[in-house]
């Protein structure tokens, strides 16, 4: 039997009296592209951050690539090396140019010698089509370019899985396409991806599964075909209808 590369078991997370995640269990197999959708404030980001423990769940267990990250004895920094994370607000390092944004993790975390790190960083920039922007600072890049550098920064660490938290929702509509293209390419190359996104064109094209979350629980999940054509719950249909209306226009 093949083990899932990501496994969540009964994850609970609350802030004060607010229960945000109310017992989420999930298994994701290697090579899957899972798209998570759901209304604002539902706990999608919280769930994604629980996977790499940027947010520590109150209870429940998380395994990634065979390692239990919720085990207090685990070296979480080491485990995070190979879990790529792409943020909604990008979070490129503001004092470093595009190249150094990518190479800094290689040098400081993986201990790669500077010339090798530079070479690899350039390669990763090329992969997202930005090799000619290597010397520019985040403040000199467009929103879409920044997010592509951020993806390259995560990819440089040779991640086993990539987590995307609404990578395009802060972008101007005309910049969304270039980021989605990079993500689609990645999906086709076989990367295991968990994407919180409301870009349903992307989901239709590359998702192996869509998960609809609301109020801290998984309401429904299924293949894109099934979710779009024949959802089990009215609520799912309603929400998919709403986001297709909102986000449909610029997803080719």
């Amino acid at each position, binding site marked *: 039997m093949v083990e899932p590369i990501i496994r969540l078991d009964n994850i609970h997370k609350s802030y004060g009296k607010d229960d945000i995640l109310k017992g989420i269990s999930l298994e994701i197999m290697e090579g899957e592209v899972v798209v998570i959708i759901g209304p604002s404030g539902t706990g999608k980001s919280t769930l994604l951050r629980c996977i790499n423990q940027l947010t520590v769940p109150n209870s429940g267990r998380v395994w990634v690539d065979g390692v239990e990250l919720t085990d207090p004895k685990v070296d979480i920094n080491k485990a995070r090396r190979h879990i790529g994370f792409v*943020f909604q607000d990008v979070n490129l*390092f503001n004092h470093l140019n595009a190249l150094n944004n990518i190479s800094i993790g290689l040098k400081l975390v993986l201990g790669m010698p500077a010339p090798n790190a530079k070479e690899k960083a350039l390669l990763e920039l090329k992969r997202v089509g930005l090799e000619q922007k290597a010397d520019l600072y985040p403040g000199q890049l467009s929103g879409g370019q920044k997010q592509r550098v951020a993806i390259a920064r995560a990819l440089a660490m040779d991640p086993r899985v990539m987590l995307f938290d609404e990578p395009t929702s802060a972008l101007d509509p005309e910049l969304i396409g270039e980021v989605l293209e990079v993500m689609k390419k990645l999906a086709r190359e076989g990367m295991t991806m968990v994407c919180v996104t409301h870009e349903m064109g992307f989901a239709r094209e590359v998702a192996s599964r869509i998960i609809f979350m609301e109020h801290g629980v998984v309401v429904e999940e299924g293949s894109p075909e099934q979710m779009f054509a024949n959802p089990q719950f009215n609520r799912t249909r309603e929400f998919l209808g709403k986001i297709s209306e909102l986000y449909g226009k610029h997803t080719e």
Partner: protein
Amino acid sequence: MTYLTFLEIALPELWEGTLITLQITLITLIIGFVIGFPAALARIYGGKALGAISTAYTEVLRGTPVLVQLFIIYYGLPQFGVTLPAFSAAYIALGLNSGAYQAEYFRGAIQAISSGQMLAAQSLGMNKLKAIIHIIIPQAFRLALPAWANEVVSMVKVTSIVYLTAVPDLMTKAKMLSSKYFNPIETYLTAAVFYLVIIGILTVVLSYIEKTTRIPGLEMEAEAR
């Protein structure tokens, strides 16, 4: 005595005083940095106890006149058997004072950095210490530079209080000249020009450093154009 003959006598004296003023400014700023920067880190990352100590330090020193602080150290400590030379007392008092202000500038700079920077560093597998050293501190230095430049300028002026503890700085030299030649207007105006030139040069140098180290998109909200 004409102003020119007075200048002939006064300039070497004032120059000597200027060197002392610069020396006190420099040493004070260094002491202030060595105390203030860790104090800022302690307040943000140091947990409850260290944070409270750092807060108490900055609030007490910024909440009382620097002259009172200098007198406590120079005139007050001897009561406990600790007698410090005037120079040492000046370095300690002004250094502690500057440290409190520098702590606030660095704290403001660190807090202006979005929490996403730390999260992004951690998501790559950096531990918190590496993230602070390689991601937060370089940005904080750059962000704090304008405020820090103000502290340099302000320190040049604040050092003039050491004439009250008989340190032979620019102000002390001026005071001596003026009581010797009974020409306070000429003396103090000349001294003022000295201060102005020192500050002018420092301002030019500091804004040059600011300009050459500018990183597009990395600035405090208030200085963003």
